[in-house]
C-alpha cells in the first residue's frame, strides 16, 4: 500500500494536467489551421464565399419576403422590383427566395453525398491498400471500370434508371465519388503501411483492423480533408448540372440547376432567374474550390 501511494498520487496529479495539455494541443492545432488558412489569400476568399452561402442557407426564411413556392400569376417573368428583389420566374415565383432556399438544397445534398462516398471509399481503399495482392487487384479493377465513366454520364444513367429524387441524386453522386476516394485512400495506405510505426504496431501483435483504423487512417486525414472539401465543390457542380439537364430534383424543389433549366427558354424575355441561379452556383463552386486549393497549397508548403 505504501509503495502504491506515490504512483496513484502522481497519476491523479498528472491526469488533469495531461488533459490540459491535450486541450492546449487541440487549441494549438485549431490555431495552426487558422494560420494556414489566413496565410493563403485564395483560401480566405474561398472561405468567405462559402460562409456567405452557408449564412444565406441557414437564415433563408429571415432574409426572404416570399416562400420559394408562392406563385403570383400577375407577376410572371418580371425583372427586379420593390416586391421581388431579383424579379420572378415563369411561374411568378420570387427568384431571390428560390436562390436562397436553393442554397439549402445544395449545401445539404452536397456534403451528404460526399460523406456517403467517403464511407464507401475508405471501406474499399483501406483494405485494398493494406492487404494488396488479389484483394487489391479485384477491388481496383472494378473501381477502374467505374472511373472509366465520364462522371456526368454515370449520373445520367443511374438517375434515368432509378428516377429523379434527392435520395437518388445523393446515391448517384456517392457512387460516382467512391472510386476516386478509394484510390486516394489506397495510395495513402500503401505509403503509410511501410512506415516504421506500422511495423512497430505489428510487433505489438496488434490485429490488422486496429492497425488500419488506429495507425493508418488518422494519418491520412490531411489529404482526405482537402479532398473532402474539393469533392463538396464537385458535388455542388454535379447537383447543379444534373438539375440543369432535367435529371435533378423534381420540381417544385428550389434547385439552382433546375432554375437555369426552367429559365433557359425564357432568357430572351427575362434573364434574371437564369442569371441569379448561374451566378449562385458559380460563386459557391469556385468558393469551395478556392478554399480547398488554398488549403492544399499552404499545407504542402509546410511539408
Amino acid at each position, binding site marked *: 500500500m505504501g509503495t502504491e501511494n506515490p*504512483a*496513484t498520487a*502522481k*497519476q491523479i496529479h*498528472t*491526469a488533469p494536467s*495531461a488533459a490540459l*495539455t*491535450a486541450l492546449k*494541443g487541440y487549441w494549438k492545432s485549431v490555431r495552426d489551421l487558422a494560420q494556414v488558412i489566413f*496565410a493563403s489569400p485564395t483560401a480566405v476568399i474561398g472561405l468567405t464565399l462559402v460562409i456567405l452561402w452557408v449564412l444565406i442557407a441557414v437564415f433563408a426564411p429571415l432574409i426572404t419576403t416570399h416562400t420559394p413556392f408562392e406563385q403570383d400569376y400577375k407577376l410572371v417573368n418580371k425583372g427586379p422590383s420593390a416586391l421581388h428583389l431579383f424579379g420572378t420566374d415563369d411561374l411568378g415565383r420570387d427568384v431571390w427566395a428560390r436562390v436562397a432556399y436553393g442554397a439549402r438544397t445544395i449545401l445539404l445534398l452536397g456534403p451528404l453525398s460526399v460523406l456517403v462516398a467517403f464511407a464507401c471509399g475508405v471501406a474499399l481503399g483501406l483494405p485494398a491498400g493494406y492487404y494488396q495482392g488479389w484483394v487489391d487487384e479485384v477491388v481496383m479493377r472494378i473501381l477502374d471500370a467505374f472511373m472509366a465513366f465520364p462522371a456526368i454520364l454515370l449520373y445520367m444513367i443511374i438517375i434515368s434508371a432509378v428516377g429523379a429524387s434527392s435520395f437518388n441524386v445523393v446515391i448517384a453522386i456517392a457512387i460516382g465519388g467512391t472510386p476516386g476516394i478509394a484510390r486516394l485512400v489506397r495510395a495513402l495506405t500503401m505509403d503509410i503501411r511501410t*512506415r*516504421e*510505426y506500422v*511495423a*512497430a*504496431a*505489428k*510487433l*505489438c*501483435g*496488434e490485429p*490488422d483492423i486496429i492497425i488500419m483504423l*488506429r*495507425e493508418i487512417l*488518422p*494519418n491520412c*486525414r490531411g489529404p482526405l480533408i482537402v479532398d473532402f472539401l474539393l469533392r463538396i465543390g464537385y458535388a455542388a457542380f454535379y447537383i447543379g448540372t444534373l438539375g440543369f439537364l432535367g435529371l435533378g430534383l423534381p420540381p417544385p424543389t428550389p434547385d439552382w440547376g433546375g432554375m437555369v433549366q426552367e429559365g433557359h427558354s425564357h432568357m430572351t424575355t427575362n434573364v434574371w432567374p437564369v442569371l441569379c441561379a448561374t451566378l449562385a452556383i458559380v460563386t459557391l463552386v469556385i468558393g469551395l474550390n478556392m478554399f480547398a486549393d488554398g488549403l492544399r497549397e499552404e499545407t504542402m508548403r509546410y511539408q
Partner: protein
Amino acid sequence: MDQSPILTLKNVAVTYKTRKRDVDAVRDVSFEISRGENLGLVGESGCGKSTVAFSIVNFLGRNGRVTGGDILFKGEQLRDRSEEDLRKLRGADISMVYQEPMSALNPSMRIQDQLAESLIAHRGFTKTAAFAESVDALKIVYMPDPEAVMLRYPHQLSGGQQQRVLIAMAMLNNPSLLIMDEPTTALDVTVEAAVLDLIAELQERYHTATLYISHNLGVVARVSHKVAVMYAGEIVELADTRTIYRSPMHPYTMGLMRCLPDVDAPKGTRTLHPIQGRVPSPANLPAGCIFSPRCELAQPECSLQHPQLVEMAPGHQVRCLRSLDWKDAKMIWEMEELAKEPCPHRADPNPDTVLNVEQAKVYYPVPFKTVGGIFGLEKRRYVRASDDVSFSIRRGRTLGIVGESGCGKSTLAKAIVGLEPLYAGKVDFLGLDISKPVDKRTQATIKELQMVFQDPNGVLNPSYSVGDQIAFSLRRFKTVPADQVHAEVERLLQAVKLDASYYSRLPRQLSGGEKQRIGIARAISTNPAMLVCDEPVSALDVSVQAAVLNLALEIQRSQNTTMILISHDLSSVRFFADDVAVMYLGRVVEIGPCETVYRPPNHPYTTALLAAVPRPDPDLTPSHIRLSGRVPSAVNPPAGCRFNTRCPFKIGAICQQQEPPRRDMGNGHLIFCHYTPEDLGKLKA
C-alpha cells in the same frame, strides 16, 4: 605557384526572408582558398554550409540574398554582379558538384547532351568537338566505356557513375574554383572511397581551388588541406587539417571528434561523448556565444558576450571566449576519459544460445512483366534479398551485421522479427520455431523479440502523443496493470533519459534523436530478451548518434539483452558489437568475433570495406584496395562466389563456378572464400 587567393570571403552574411521575419542564416563568414588548395567546410546539418556555397554563385533562391561582406573571386567582387556576368562564370570558371547525383542530372536528356551544352555555351564548341572533349572528360574521371555512357540516360547509370559524370561536367571548362557540396554523402562506402580517390587525384593534377562541404570528418581529413568548422551559421574554428584534427581548440570541434566511434577501437575501450542538445535554428539563436547552451565548458560569461574569431596561432582561428584558458584543454579531456571505467558488463560466463538462424532465405517475387505471367506462363523470378544465411547468437551478446545498401541485411532483420516472410530455412528463438511471420506468432514470442527502427521520422505515429504510443504497447502486452500504465511510461521515459513532460508531446515537437529514444523506450517496454536494431543511428547527426549508441549500450549491459545491430557503418559496429557478420548480395561472406574480423586475415570484401572507411586522421595513408563495377542484380546473382565480379583478388574460373568453401579461422571466425586460411593471411591490404 601563384599563391594569391582564388576565392576570398570577407564577413559574408546571408539573409532569408521568411513569412514572419528575416533570418540571418549565415553571419560573418570569412575564408580564403588559393590555387591548388582544398578547404573543407564541416559541421552538422543546418549549420549553413550549403548556403555559403550557393552564396558564392549567388544562387540563393527567391528568398535569400547576400546582405553583408565581400565575395572576391580572383580579386574581383562577385556581389551584386549582373546575372549575365555570373552566367559567364558559372560552369566555366566556377563549377559545382552536388549531393544527390541522380536528381542533379536531367532525367530526360542523354549524358552527351548534358555534358556538351556546357562546352557549347561557354567556349562555342561545335557538337562533334564537344562530344570528343566530353569523352575525354569522362576518361579523366575513369568512367568505364565512356562512349557508351554518353548515349545513356541518367537512370541507366549507378550512383557512383552519376557522380563521376557530374565531376567530369564540373571539370570540363577547367574551372579555377570547384565547389563540392557533400559529393559522396549519398554514396555507399566503397563507392565513396573510389570517388574520394578521384577527387584527390584531380586535385594533384589540376591544382583547382576547391571548397569541399561535408558533415563527415573522415572524408574531410582525406581530401582537404584546410578545414573550417561551421556552427549555426558561423565559422567557429579555421586551421590547416592537421591542426584541426590534432589540436582542436573550439569545444564544438572537440565535441565533433569525441563523439565519433573509432573503427580501430574495440568494444568497451572507449565511451562516446555526445554533444548535448541540438543545433539552434537561425531564427532562434541563443544570446552570447551561440554554442554556449551545448558547451560542457561554458562559463557564465559565455552566454553574455558574443566571441569574435581570433587568430590563436598563425593560420589557426578560433571563436571562443575561453580558448586562451585551455591551450591544452584536449589533454584535460583525454585524462578525464582514461579515468572513466568503461561500463561494467554483466555477462554470463557460459551463455546459452538465444537465436539460431539456419539457411534462411528471404525472397521477394518479381512482378510479372507479361499478362501470361498471371496465368502461369512465365517463370516466377525472385529477388534473393537474403540467401542461405546461418548464424547463432548467445545470450547477452551483440551481433553486428554490416554490408553496403542492397546486401540484404535489413531484410534479414525484418525476417527475424517476422515483418517479412521467410522463403525457406529455419529460425529458432529461445528454443521456439519462429520461422513464421509476426501475425502467426504468439504474443509471448512477439514480446521477447522487439525491434528498433531506422528512420526517426517514421518511428512514431504522428497522430498520437509519445506517451500514448508507449502505452499502446504496455496495454497490449499487459506488461503492468492498467492503472500503472502511466507511471510505467514515465519510468521508461526516464530510462531513455527523457523527463516525464515528454508524455504528452507530439512526435513533430521532438528532434530526431529524441524520437529515436522514444523508439527504444517502446521497444524495451516489453522487456524483450532480444532487440534487433536496424540502422538505429544512420539518419542522425554525428553528435546525436553518440548519445543514442551510448543509451543502447547501457540498456544492453543493464538488462543483459541480446542484440542484433544492422549497420553500414563499420565504426559503430566496432563500438557496439561483440560479433560481426559481413554480408554481400544476400550471403554472409565472413562472420566471427569483432577482435578477429576487424583484423587481417579477412575475406577480400571485408578488406575492401575496411579500406574504404574514411578515418578522421589526416596522417593515415589511404589504402588502395578499391572495388570496381557495380553490385550485380539480386534477381540473377553471379554463379560461384557472388563477389567474383568485383573481387580485387579473384583467383580465376573456380570463383565463377564453385560456391566458396567455409574456412574456419579458429575462435568461431568463419570466412567463405576459395583462398585457404594461409593464403588469406598473405593477401596484402
